[in-house]
């Protein structure tokens, strides 16, 4: 497993844990919304586009927070054919440069492109185009940059951890 069990977790990691726990309840809410929507339509012939849209609103929040959580707990999928045969130090070097050259630039690109995207939606007062759809679309859209800021923080904390190991600051343990 990842760093979950490590003693002496940083404040960031504790927060991340809490955020993961809290956001996980969206799945229960999503189940409820789907069941209500199905019953309303099948039993009462009542279609509610609000409920349909609420479904993917909840889902979007859930998967974005999931991506953040996976970074925190090092659960993102790796192809470990060669990784298993690598020394702990080589793995750390790969993670170090991977975060620096691949992960952080990508997060920066998404953040940089998502901010105007959300601002535009807010300025235009964007709402759903469907009959009875949900208003305030910028709220859901803003989940994109918000989650990516959290993602960047979690990534930076990983970078610091790997960096400490590489550049000697105690903690000789290898990466996953």
């Amino acid at each position: 497993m990842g760093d979950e069990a490590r003693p002496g977790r940083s404040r960031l990691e504790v927060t991340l844990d809490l955020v993961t726990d809290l956001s996980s309840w969206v799945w229960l809410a999503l189940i409820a919304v789907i069941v209500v929507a199905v019953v309303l339509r099948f039993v009462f012939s009542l279609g509610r586009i609000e409920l349909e849209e609420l479904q993917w609103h909840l889902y979007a929040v859930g998967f974005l927070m999931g991506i953040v959580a996976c970074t925190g707990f090092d659960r993102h999928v790796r192809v470990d054919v060669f990784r298993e045969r690598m020394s702990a130090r080589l793995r750390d070097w790969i993670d170090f440069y991977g975060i620096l050259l691949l992960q952080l630039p990508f997060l920066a690109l998404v953040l940089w492109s998502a901010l105007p995207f959300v601002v535009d939606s807010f300025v235009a007062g964007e709402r759903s185009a469907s009959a009875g759809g949900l208003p305030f679309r910028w709220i859901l859209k803003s989940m994109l940059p918000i989650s990516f800021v959290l993602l960047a923080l979690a990534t930076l904390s990983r970078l610091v951890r790997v960096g400490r190991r590489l550049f000697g600051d105690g903690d000789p343990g290898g990466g996953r």
Partner: protein
Amino acid sequence: GGPRAVGSGSETVSEAVGDANPLPTTAPRLRWRVTSAFGTNLPTLGENPVEVADRLRRASAGRIDWTIDDPGEVVPAFAIVDAVRAGKIEAGYTWLGYDQGRLPVSVLFGAVPFGMTPWEYSAWWVRGGGRELAREIYRPLGIEPILCGMIGPETAGWFRKEIRTPDDLSGLKIRFAGLGGRTLQKLGASVTMLPGGEIFQALEKGAIDATEFSLPEVDARLGFDRVARFNYFPGWHQPHTAFHLVVHEATWRALPEPTRELIELACGDGVHRNLANAEAAQGPAIAESERRGVVTRALSPGLLRALETAAHEVLREEAAADPDFARVLDHQRRFRARYA
């Protein structure tokens, strides 16, 4: 735009300065990615931008070189106007009404329930001040809208059961988009917005009772005529449907005049050919679906009256909420009053 805009921009600048020949064979190419809101494989709807691009390529001896992308390949269908506005792509081909969530007035340039017929809309756009009005609204947003395609009435939808009176609409589970959906809601229908890919199955299994989608020809390709017995006319919610080429405004202004002219010509031809193709193909498509056992029916006059009343109520509500919507709706109505 970033470096790419600089790249293609400098190409077009040199074209503007260096050559008085309208078909400068030495000038650099105008390579655009144009996202279409309709799959290029869809008959009539999707073919039109491809044909426009082909004709432009031939007319310009290959200088105007557009790649028509399917929706989602590069830009998602509903994000086209937004992406063009931000200069992420140079141009797109879309139904403006997809944008009504952020720009309510946009639907008036696309299709209005019980609104104008294709020839009325053409007259309004070309001679009645429609184009100027559209520019007035879209240019501040950084977009040049060019009328580029049009089709006649769609069907009123595919139904599993017969619809005779307004009462039959009450409780009917129907997939219906936009203002038409709101109209049906007023008459008690239960409106949903299933994603395109799930419509067929939902209709087949009865999760919904009815759906509208597009032209009979397109719908038949998607198989709705296999799972719904009744096909109703007329398409009250879209007496005409107009499609526009939307170009990033700064890019448009930087184009040399011959190029702009050529694009406008090709789009004018696109409208004409699109209408011709749509009209010519519908008869055979309807005959074919009738051969398969689909019953083609006209909505009863009473039902149409009820729909029209409800539609006007929806339009009134929209106009009350948005000044631009009110202005354009009023403009269209005054034009129609004079025209009729």
